[in-house]
């Protein structure tokens, strides 16, 4: 099998806080193939953004964060690179877009400056060439009259346009991998659809792989080929997108699926919710992390944490009883 573009092995990200060390990402492993769109889903605080930012080592390693494990980009472990080497990867081989396009652009520089900066850090270009490239990038991401927009400031653009600028900036050096950290959450639905279309288009045209982080399962179904479900800093299930939606195995994934409102569903019934709340990071249970909220949990779950195990092909799940649960449910439906 071909070497995956990105391979994360047992990644742990720790933070120093005033109340001691907290492990926000605890032993994550997954891989991203060339050109694929991998979805990473989970509720707020499950560690998906931390995972994303850990890939580029964006946290302050001197005072707050420390990493363990391996993040291999085409076989090279990013966690062992020096600061300077890491700077050459960022924005060049792997780039990132963020949730809120307004606060993610520097308000005191023109978007042209910010685009040209990325280009000129990684490529040997004159100002003039970089400016032309910036204009071309803006045009590629569907910004009208880019010659004019290039000298405008972020506050002069609409939310959708700002996110297009962010995407243009991320694509400036034709990265192999784009990490999109909830890129559509701060946008309204029509703009959201446009941005998703744009990302799909660019993924196809440029063959760039995307790690798509979101809590929106609808978006996942629309754009992703494979999905990783995270809960409290761990991967609980991993599957192809169709498989995840048709036969979710982990009780948490099942809960998420049931919580999606149906267009043709019965309006008189309340939406399904997953009972309980996510335990705090400094009070992680010793057994299965989902046990306290799981209706199928027994003593084994409370005592011993399950490993991520292969169900079939590339469908993996972290649960002691997933087989029984699925059988039970099938029997209930029959």
């Amino acid at each position: 099998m071909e070497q995956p573009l990105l391979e994360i092995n047992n990644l742990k990200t720790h933070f120093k806080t005033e109340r001691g060390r907290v492990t926000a990402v605890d032993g994550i492993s997954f891989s991203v193939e060339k050109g694929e769109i991998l979805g990473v889903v989970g509720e707020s605080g499950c560690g998906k953004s931390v995972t994303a930012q850990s890939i580029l080592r964006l946290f302050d390693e001197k005072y707050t964060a420390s990493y363990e494990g391996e993040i291999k980009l085409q076989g090279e472990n990013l966690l062992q690179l020096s600061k300077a080497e890491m700077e050459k990867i960022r924005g060049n081989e792997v780039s990132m877009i963020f949730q809120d396009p307004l606060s993610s652009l520097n308000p005191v520089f023109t978007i042209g400056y910010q685009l040209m900066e990325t280009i000129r850090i990684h490529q040997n270009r004159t100002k003039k060439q970089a400016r032309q490239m910036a204009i071309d990038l803006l045009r590629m991401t569907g910004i009208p009259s880019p010659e004019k927009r290039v000298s405008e400031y972020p506050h002069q653009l609409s939310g959708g346009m700002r996110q297009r600028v962010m995407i243009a900036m991320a694509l400036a050096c034709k990265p192999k991998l784009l990490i999109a950290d909830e890129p559509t959450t701060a946008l309204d639905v029509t703009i959201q659809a446009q941005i998703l279309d744009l990302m799909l288009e660019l993924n196809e045209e440029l063959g760039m792989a995307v790690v798509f982080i979101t809590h929106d399962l609808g978006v996942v179904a629309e754009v992703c080929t494979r999905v990783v479900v995270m809960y409290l800093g761990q991967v609980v299930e991993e599957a192809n997108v169709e498989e995840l939606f048709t036969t979710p195995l982990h009780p948490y994934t099942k809960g998420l699926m049931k919580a999606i409102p149906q267009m043709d569903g019965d309006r008189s019934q309340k939406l399904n919710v997953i009972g309980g709340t996510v335990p705090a990071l400094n009070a992680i249970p010793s057994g299965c992390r989902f046990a306290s909220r799981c209706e199928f949990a027994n003593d084994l779950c409370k005592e011993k944490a399950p490993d991520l195990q292969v169900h079939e092909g590339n469908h993996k799940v972290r649960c002691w009883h997933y087989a029984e649960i699925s059988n039970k449910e099938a029997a209930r439906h029959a």
Partner: protein
Amino acid sequence: MYIYILKRIFSLVPVLFVVSIVAFLLIYLTPGDPVSVMLGQEATAEQIEALREQMGFNDPLYLQYFHWLINVLQGNLGDSYFMHMPVTTAIVEHLGPTLSIAVLAELIAILIALPVGILAAKHRGSLMDQFVMGFTLTGMAIPSFLFGLILMLVLGVKLGWLPVAGYQPLSTGFWNYLQYLLMPGLALGIIQSALIARMTRSSMLEVLNADFIKTARSKGVKERSIIYVHALRNALLPIITVVGQTFGLLLAGAVVIETIFNIPGIGQLVLNSIQSRDYAVIQGVILMVAFFYVIINLVIDLLYMLIDPRVGY
């Protein structure tokens, strides 16, 4: 943008107008009669009355104000009874030393405060950060005159490196001029730097947590330019506000420092004219200080516009 600048300039007019009224009314708000002070205790009631009439003190208040304002607008602030010279001349003579010290002190303050504040923010929570915070707290707690006296004792008396007190104008040579300014400049500047350093630190800390700093990092921008290009420009607004305010304070005359170092600046002028009830001078100084404050604020506003494109829309 030009409209914004014009608007800012026009908005100064009412402020200066109100200040002029306050300065003018000062004579009537303070106890004591300027005329009897001028003529001394032996003056007869007739003499006092005659001078009052001659100086227009018997006219209705609004008329007196009006006359005064017309003169002020023509650059005539009246004459000092005490020094027997026009107030404008007196102010100009005393402005030189004050302005020199203020500029020097502010330069010293900025040169110390900016790097120190940035470093503290960059290494938040480190030993150095704690040292800086403790140092600046001490700086804010020490009165500048105490610090001035210590400097005087060490640099002037013990080491003999700098003249203990006095002032020499620039026309006597640059070094001669500077050596008299250094100690008062240091005394004021180092104390001011504490405030500016704290402001720099907190402003930088806020900006360094912003999302766009993360974006810059994710683009591969070097740590140095993240701090000095992306963060600093955003953090600059509150910093220049504090710099402007402290500069205004310094221009109003550091009375105590000027007294200790025996510098014939605005502070001394104010002190002397208050003691001798030289109202025209007091009024003149108040107007001047207010005028400078307003101009400094205008400059700050215009700098805002240069630094942050969102201002002015």
